[in-house]
């Protein structure tokens, strides 16, 4: 009588321990990365780091203001192209995508989702940089947008699908045309999820390096001209980390810490946005 119960309790304890241990193991890399970055990077972060552009190689001092601003501009450009197209495609897939065209768009989005980001870079280089004859922030934004679109489209689709069918019917029965039902009722109800999906996508692309190598190229000077090469934090880290100077390595660690903080901040913001709006739903 007792034995089966004991066996069950022991089994449960072992499994719980195992699951907790595996869970810790999964979180461990993140903690290591954050710890390592903080140890090696935090000391280099000061006012100059955020306000000054890089100084010529060999000199000490200087910052990565150009890369921080550049990241903002290029990610902004990516959002400008990527979010409307991605969200639009997602709404289309969820609301009207039951036919052959929907199947095709979904298939293409899934393939694009799995495409290595450097391939996107080559693609934009071939179709945009090469014909125009020069690298530019705009090209970088397009490459990141191309990465974003399938991600945003698929998460938007999932979120819109979660809206109960009864709400659509209620709107249609009130005399809403179909497109208005989609926009005013369905998309509005799914908005928190769509915003979260967008933020997660932004966090994903903010740290991309490969697609920017031959599109935005990088720029050691401060630049806000989107038709010229531009620096981003990821490119700056790439250049500094692979360079020969200790000063560069120091700044690379600091830039990595800032980039990590940015991505983490976006992820937290995404969580917060969901929770805020879920309060009513």
């Amino acid at each position, binding site marked *: 009588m007792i034995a089966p119960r004991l066996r069950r309790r022991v089994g449960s304890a072992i499994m719980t321990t195992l699951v907790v241990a595996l869970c810790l193991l999964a979180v461990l890399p993140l903690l290591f990365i954050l710890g390592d970055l903080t140890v090696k990077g935090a000391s280099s972060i000061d006012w100059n780091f955020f306000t000054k552009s890089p100084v010529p190689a060999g000199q000490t001092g200087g910052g990565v203001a150009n890369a921080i601003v550049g990241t903002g501009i290029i990610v902004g450009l990516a959002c400008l192209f990527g979010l409307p197209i991605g969200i639009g495609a997602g709404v289309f897939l969820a609301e009207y995508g039951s036919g052959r065209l929907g199947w095709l768009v979904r298939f293409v989005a899934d393939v694009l989702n799995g495409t290595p980001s450097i391939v996107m870079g080559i693609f934009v280089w071939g179709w945009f940089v090469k014909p125009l004859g020069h690298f530019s922030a705009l090209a970088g934004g397009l490459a990141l947008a191309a990465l974003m679109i399938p991600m945003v489209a698929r998460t938007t689709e999932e979120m819109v699908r979660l809206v*109960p069918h*009864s*709400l659509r*019917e*209620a*709107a*249609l*029965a*009130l*005399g*809403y*045309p179909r497109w*208005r039902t989609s926009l005013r*009722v369905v998309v*509005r*109800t799914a*908005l928190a999820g769509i915003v979260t999906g967008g933020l997660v996508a932004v966090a994903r692309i903010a740290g991309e390096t490969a697609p920017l190598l031959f599109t935005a190229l990088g720029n050691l000077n401060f630049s806000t001209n989107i038709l010229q090469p531009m620096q981003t934090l990821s490119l700056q880290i790439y250049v500094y980390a692979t360079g020969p100077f200790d000063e560069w390595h120091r700044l690379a660690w600091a830039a990595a810490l800032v980039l990590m903080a940015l991505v983490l901040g976006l992820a937290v913001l995404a969580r917060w946005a969901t929770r805020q709006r879920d309060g*009513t*739903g």
Partner: protein
Amino acid sequence: MALADAALHLATERLTALFHRTAAVKEVSLMFPRHTVTAIIGPSGCGKSTFLRCLNRMHELSDGGWVTGKVLLEGVDIYGGRVNPVEVRRRVGMVFQRPTPFPTMSIYDNVVAGLRVNGRLPQTTLDEAVERALRQSALWDEVKDRLRVSALDLSGGQQQRLCIARAVAPGPDVLLLDEPTASLDPLGTLRIEELCHELKRRYTIVIVTHNLQQAARVSDYTAFFYLGELIEVGRTKDIFTKPRVERTEAYITGRFG
């Protein structure tokens, strides 16, 4: 005859509703006089909800849904070539089994949702419409001080009355109720039933119900559906006291269904 026509508001002529190639409603001809409540009863799957959804052209939105025959609203076939289904749905309001308030909107915005779809209206017009609709649905006294809170803060019964308010706010002619009390407690059910008596002074009401007592309490006419066919229709008291068809009698006395 002329008098009968004038009182006749809504009618179906040999209405058949199909899903792909299967008929869910077969050649039903029914008449709904103005300012009456007609109850549609029958066992599950008899096509009564499908029939109701044909009356405001909602059936055709279902997967594979299509219709033959006619639905005459004030003498005009709503399935006629020139008729816009969106216009039909504005004239024929509908309330569903489960309350479906729009979760992102306040009580106020829910009520005016059907009005706003026609374009911008002056604030005073909207305010008046909200009060009128909420009074008609017997919800005004309970929510008048909190019109701006989320519609989801209301109880299930209140939400259902809000949905009735939302359906009547644009000023439809006909109100279709698809088992409106299916998800409500007895008190909520009672209030909706009382409401039917009030609302029929303004609207022509068609109510689908599983609950025979409810049909007997609220309706002037009752139609009994079985396997997609109209078996019998008549004054409610006649249907419940001396049905002419044996199957109707079997159903209302609880011998099947």
